């Protein structure tokens, strides 16, 4: 059977992108960004704080890290709970030890179920990013817009109610969006999203409901990708973050401010045998003269003043 002739038609083959969300922009020729106090590399720690119901749903897809065995999967349910009960506090202690304020991307179910966690995060001076409702709250094309709108509202409003502050940022589960997501996020008044990984600095993202900023959260440098998916050690993770920092720091000397996201998962990095390596990494980062360890909203505001 011959391929349909339309397969050789290219209606979006033109100068620039094949969509209207953002124009092409070349990273190394932009006006340099300046971070506060002469710092050169913004380190953006983001802890994903997730609640996995023991009753997983596959519509539209099963979240990474979700239940894997036949019901009841105590193994994965409790391992993920370990992250919220124990691992998170180890990570928060590591950041407190170096005086860093960070971002926590939380499922709203965490706020409903464990408000004392939210209290600790707020008291620590950290930022909350909305990260869906729970780990069954995945998004993909085909999801009715009204259902997606409700999910976003439920997440943002619950976090606002429990924490006292409306989240400004959004992270989708597995960074998976529908064609409606960015528009619905802008409509819900969110200032930024973290889903698109095509850049290493924030950029403007246009939607039919107005603009939202995308702050790229590098997926390849997450502990989940390196430790869980690629099965590398915590020491290798630390080496890779240090190599990345060194490179970005050198680039910043010629091209202006750079950004290094540090995406962490409590049930992965927060284990006793990995924390020694992570504590040492946090101390090393804090010692770098060019490192500005900070929250996503602080990066956004600094960037917006100059963009």
């Amino acid at each position, binding site marked *: *059977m*011959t*391929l*349909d*002739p*339309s*397969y*050789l038609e*290219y209606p*979006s*083959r*033109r*100068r*620039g*992108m*094949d*969509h209207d969300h953002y124009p*092409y922009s*070349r*990273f*190394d020729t932009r006006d340099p960004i300046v971070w506060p106090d002469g710092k050169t590399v913004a380190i953006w720690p983001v802890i994903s704080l997730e609640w996995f119901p023991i009753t997983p749903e596959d519509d*539209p*897809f099963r979240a990474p890290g979700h239940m894997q065995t036949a019901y009841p999967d105590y193994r994965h349910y409790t391992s993920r709970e370990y992250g919220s009960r124990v691992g998170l506090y180890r990570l928060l202690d590591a950041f407190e030890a170096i005086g860093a304020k960070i971002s926590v991307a939380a499922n709203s179910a965490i706020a409903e179920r464990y408000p004392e966690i939210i209290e600790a995060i707020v008291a620590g001076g950290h930022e909350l990013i909305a990260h869906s409702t729970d780990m069954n709250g995945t998004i*993909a*094309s*085909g999801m009715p817009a009204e259902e997606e709108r409700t999910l976003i509202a439920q997440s943002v409003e619950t976090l606002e109610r429990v924490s006292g502050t409306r989240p400004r940022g959004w992270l*989708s589960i*597995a*960074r*998976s*969006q*529908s*064609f409606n997501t960015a528009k619905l996020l802008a409509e819900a008044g969110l200032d930024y999203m973290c*889903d*698109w*990984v*095509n*850049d*290493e600095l924030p950029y403007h993202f246009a939607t039919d409901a107005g603009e939202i900023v995308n702050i*790229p959260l*590098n*997926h*390849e*440098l997450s502990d989940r990708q*390196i430790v869980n*998916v*690629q*099965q*590398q050690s915590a020491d*290798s993770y630390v*080496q*890779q*973050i240090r*190599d*990345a*920092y*060194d*490179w*970005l720091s050198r*680039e910043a000397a010629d091209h202006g401010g750079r950004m290094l996201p540090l995406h962490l998962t409590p049930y992965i990095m927060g284990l006793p045998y990995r924390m020694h390596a992570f504590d040492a990494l946090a101390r090393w980062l804090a010692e770098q003269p060019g490192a500005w360890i900070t929250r996503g909203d602080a990066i956004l505001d600094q960037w917006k003043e100059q963009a």
Partner: protein
Amino acid sequence: MREGEADPGLYEFKAWRGRPKIRWPEGKTCAVWVAPNLEFYELDPPANPHRKSWPKPHPDVVGYSHRDHANRVSHWRMADVMSKYGFPGSVSLSVALCDHIPEVVEDANARGWEFFSHGIYNTRYSYGMDEAQERAIIEDSIETVKRATGQQIRGWLAPALTHTPRTLDLIAEYGLDYTCDLYHDDQPTDVAVAKGQLTAIPYSLEVNDHYGFFIYNMSPRDYADTLIRQFERLATEGEESGTVMCIPLHSYLIGQPHRIGPFEEVLKHIANDGRAWIARAGEIVDAFREQGDD
């Protein structure tokens, strides 16, 4: 190829031992070529019935935006490191990139890189194409690259490695000199085609950065070590008869900040070794053909 037969008859078997000596210029033992894939992936491409464009429902935000990182950020990082140590690229090009992001193509051209076709988009597959359709993408490739760069393409790497039984015959008929689609040897090989002459130049899946990072899950430093070992072995064996080492790259992988530093050390190592003939794919094919396959 002999369509439908168990052995497609692409080339003669020649054992690794006892081959005639291939000599590279200036007594070098291993021809090293770097093959950056400069690609454009579509956000919402039409479906090919034989293969999905994206593993997830469209929009595959991570898949698309990760690859978009190449043209916004990591191409420049990768290209600067290559230029610093004297490695030109032989580009596996999604030719629609000439239309979408001409900056990237112009940059590669200005650095003296050679272009061959990797199809129109890496989200459009050859599977199921009839002969006229396949001719159309070959003609489009030749014309688009000529218009954008002034270069005549000499080689082919099928888009996303999707072939038809006609592909090799057709590219030879259009006067292309080499294919990067066959992985049977560490030296160039004559390919059996209906008309014209076609050489299979060693490309590599095994030391491709995609395989390194996403099939074998290597750390950046493990991948760098792998490339150095690959070079050391081929440079030593090349004393008998010249070998070819290809380093296929995707800037959105190798140009990430945690990988580019270790990779820079690899290029420095190969450039300083003294046994490498650092060349473009077309030059390697020419030097091989001048000596004959026999």
